[in-house]
């Protein structure tokens, strides 16, 4: 049976970050992720690179970590970020004392926060409500979480790690105080395999509790549901936060062609699939439009919900610290397992470093962590693209960073490569071609996450079939099934916003898909 030095379970930012860190230290690593990389909390959050300001009052530890780490991420993965800046704003009724506390605590913790005049704020963000009372400028950015996670995957592989998506861990065999053997299954082919790890890292996020249970351990975890709504268009230039004790509907984040508003917080009993509900959507839009009155006229494109895996120190999700914990289970029954829980996207690299340090300690590996100083992907020359509009080349640079040249090359070498495949996101056929044969691409949604096709406001009204034309028979599922699965994933996010323009959009899509190819759009 195969052996491995370290088996990492969970392919979110944390897991892939750990894989990268360990591999760069010369450790032999295998990572198993049950769906596509970044399918858990990493793929369903707000996309905020926190300045730390949101936590200075209640959670100073997290705030400090955010302040430090966001500088690191700006250094190592600039292409994953949009330096759009951020503002905290209060409205009549918001606690003025909180504002003062925030400013004071921010200064104490080294989090950049500077009060500016309301006039300045409105000049910067014309869409703001004229009722804004106070404004604080912070050093926030918006982050493309998929790009970040996939960048870690790429970097980890370059350093020699093996990472497998669509592989779910099914069972542990624990003997003599160690996880001896891990059984896992390829969820697409059904193939089952086993491996013997020296060390197991449980970075399974919301599923970390379940993994721990397989080793008869219990984790102090509390899962919390958060819903976000994607609104079409960049309604603001930068991040907007409500300047008050964190509550629902506090945040707006510009992300590529959209604005993401959120969020909610509700404790989850089990690990069921979470979906955004219409009520949540309505109340988020209601609340957030207090800061941006124009929001009510904006088009809601889709809504999504994610599970925040928090360490449970308190019963209130918002009160729970965002700090992370790395638990070395040696000393309990299992001496070769480490679990990492809690934390934030912004601090993933630090979480990974701390975890890797502990793991290396167990392995007797004394190499240093280099993840803070080395760029995620090595710089590479960008190439020109003849016959492609500049704004599309710009999109590609934004999405692929150092890998723009590779992707562009594919677009240029194929005679059809420069056709526009996705109109909403301006994605070229060659981009999809570039990723179509990749080992990680096992369904159309995987292509979507890597190229952004289908993520725009029409939610794949046109591009699913074009994408199918690229992959042909190359997917594990039959073509019709692949498209239907993809469309039913889209549907989950569309259904809670099925009103107004999106309703009309869906009616038109049904002409295209069910009318023409007799495809079912919504699954069952």
């Amino acid at each position, binding site marked *: 049976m195969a052996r491995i030095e370290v088996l990492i379970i969970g392919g979110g930012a944390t897991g892939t970050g750990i894989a990268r860190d360990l591999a760069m230290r010369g450790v032999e690593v295998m990572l198993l992720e049950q769906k596509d990389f970044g399918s858990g909390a990493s793929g369903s959050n707000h996309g905020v690179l926190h300045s730390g300001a949101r936590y200075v009052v209640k959670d100073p530890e997290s705030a400090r970590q955010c302040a430090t780490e966001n500088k690191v991420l700006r250094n190592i993965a600039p292409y994953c970020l949009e330096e759009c800046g951020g503002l905290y704003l209060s409205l009549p009724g918001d606690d003025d004392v909180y504002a003062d506390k925030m400013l004071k605590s921010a200064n104490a913790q080294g989090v950049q926060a500077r009060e500016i005049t309301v006039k300045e704020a409105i000049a910067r963000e014309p869409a703001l409500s004229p009722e804004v009372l106070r404004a604080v400028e912070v050093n926030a950015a918006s982050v493309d979480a998929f790009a970040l996670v996939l960048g870690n995957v790429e970097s980890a592989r370059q350093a020699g790690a093996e990472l497998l998506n669509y592989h779910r861990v099914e069972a542990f065999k624990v003997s003599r105080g160690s996880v001896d053997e891990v059984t896992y299954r390829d969820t697409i082919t059904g193939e089952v395999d086993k491996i013997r790890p020296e060390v197991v890292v449980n970075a399974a996020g919301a599923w970390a509790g379940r993994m721990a249970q397989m080793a008869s351990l219990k984790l102090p975890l509390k899962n919390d549901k958060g819903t976000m709504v994607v609104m*079409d268009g*960049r309604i603001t230039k930068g991040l907007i936060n409500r300047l008050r004790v964190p509550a629902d509907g506090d945040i707006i984040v510009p992300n590529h062609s959209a604005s993401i508003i959120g969020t909610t917080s509700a404790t989850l009993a089990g690990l069921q699939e979470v979906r955004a509900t219409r009520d949540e959507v309505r109340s988020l839009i209601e609340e957030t439009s207090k800061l941006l009155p124009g929001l009510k006229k904006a*088009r809601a494109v889709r809504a999504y919900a994610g599970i925040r895996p928090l360490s449970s120190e308190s019963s209130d999700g918002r009160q729970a610290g965002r700090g992370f914990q790395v638990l070395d289970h040696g000393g309990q029954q299992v001496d070769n397992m480490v679990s990492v829980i809690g934390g934030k996207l912004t601090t993933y690299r630090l979480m990974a470093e701390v975890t890797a340090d502990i793991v290396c300690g167990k392995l007797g590996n004394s190499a240093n962590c280099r993840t803070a100083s080395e760029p995620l992907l090595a710089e590479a020359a960008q190439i020109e693209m003849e016959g492609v509009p*500049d*704004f599309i080349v710009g999109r590609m640079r934004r999405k692929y960073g150092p890998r723009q040249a590779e992707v562009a090359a594919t677009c240029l070498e194929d005679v059809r490569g420069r056709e*526009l495949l996705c*109109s909403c996101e301006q994605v070229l056929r060659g981009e999809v071609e570039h990723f179509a044969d990749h080992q990680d691409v096992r369904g159309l949604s995987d292509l979507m996450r890597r190229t952004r096709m289908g993520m725009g406001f029409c939610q794949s009204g046109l591009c699913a079939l074009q994408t199918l034309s690229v992959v042909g028979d190359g997917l594990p599922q039959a073509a019709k099934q692949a498209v239907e699965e993809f469309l039913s994933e889209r549907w989950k996010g569309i259904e809670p916003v099925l009103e107004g323009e999106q309703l009309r959009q869906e009616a*038109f899509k049904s002409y295209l898909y069910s009318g023409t190819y007799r495809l079912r759009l919504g699954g069952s």
Partner: protein
Amino acid sequence: MADLASNGCIKCGACVQACPVVAIDGLSSFSGPRTIAVDAVRFGAEIDQLRDHVMRCTTCWRCGDVCPARIPLPERILEVRRAIFNQELALGGHSRIMNNIDRYRRSVEPAATVPAAGKHTEGQVLYFPGCIAENRLPAILEASVSLLHKAKAPFRLPAKWSCCGAPLEKVGDWERVRMLREENLRAFDKYETLVTSCPGCTTHFVQNYSLQPLHTIEYLYEAVGPRKLAFEASKKKLRVALHHPCHLARTVGPHAMEYAAEILQRVPGVKLVEMDEADRCCGGGGGVVAGYPEVALSLAKAKVRSAIEAKADLLVAPCPFCVMNLSRAGGIEIADYTTFLNSLMK
């Protein structure tokens, strides 16, 4: 440039399918109304990247007509042009227009001789000649004046006037648009009816000046009445194809073309033939003749082909811009509507 008005786009592609510039030039050259007005702007795309695309639009406005979500695509496109202008990225050909405005208050260089206003200095009907009729196609000015005279209209020409401002709006120069409007409103002073023979001017007066002007055709039909117009027979039997200028048929209104057809059919010896896609743009608008002359020429040639296919002897257009551009194509005789009508009107 997040734009809530483009919210309703359902990606049906009707605008792209309808666009004549896309049809002639191809999507690789002109990315089409949807990309410009809906998709590219939403990323906060650097405006200069859109320049070579958006300047190819002839402002035919067909996209706005067909959009099922009623997105004001033409207005969006003009806004992009304005943003481009504000970044000082005007095309060379367009700079000439601005120079002419500054020096002569005309969009084109003045001709050596300009037809005089003659004895038409009083009257409640104010006839506005427009830059092209005065300087490039003086036959139109003469014919319009003659028509109004024959129709016994109490008309005068303004003593002083400036370019209406329409070309400047297409270029994106809204400062000059405003200046010209203010000057003209002062110069027009008092009148009952404003008449012009250029659909570009007519449209601009409607949309930008918020006036209620009449194109010559509308005046002849509504104020005079088709039955009161008497015509001599055309010397030989003529099969005439009638081009629908975009700004007349779309912005002034379909009724204007109905009038134009009805009046033409009253001329003995004239047979109106049905031309395929009579409402497809001839390429003369939007500053494309100055900016991308080959695109304008291709569209003109396509229009001429349609007329030839309909076995027309003559292609008539009630618009000086259309006439100028179509004449570049060759292949068939082109006539301005007003000039043709006047030549046969008693």
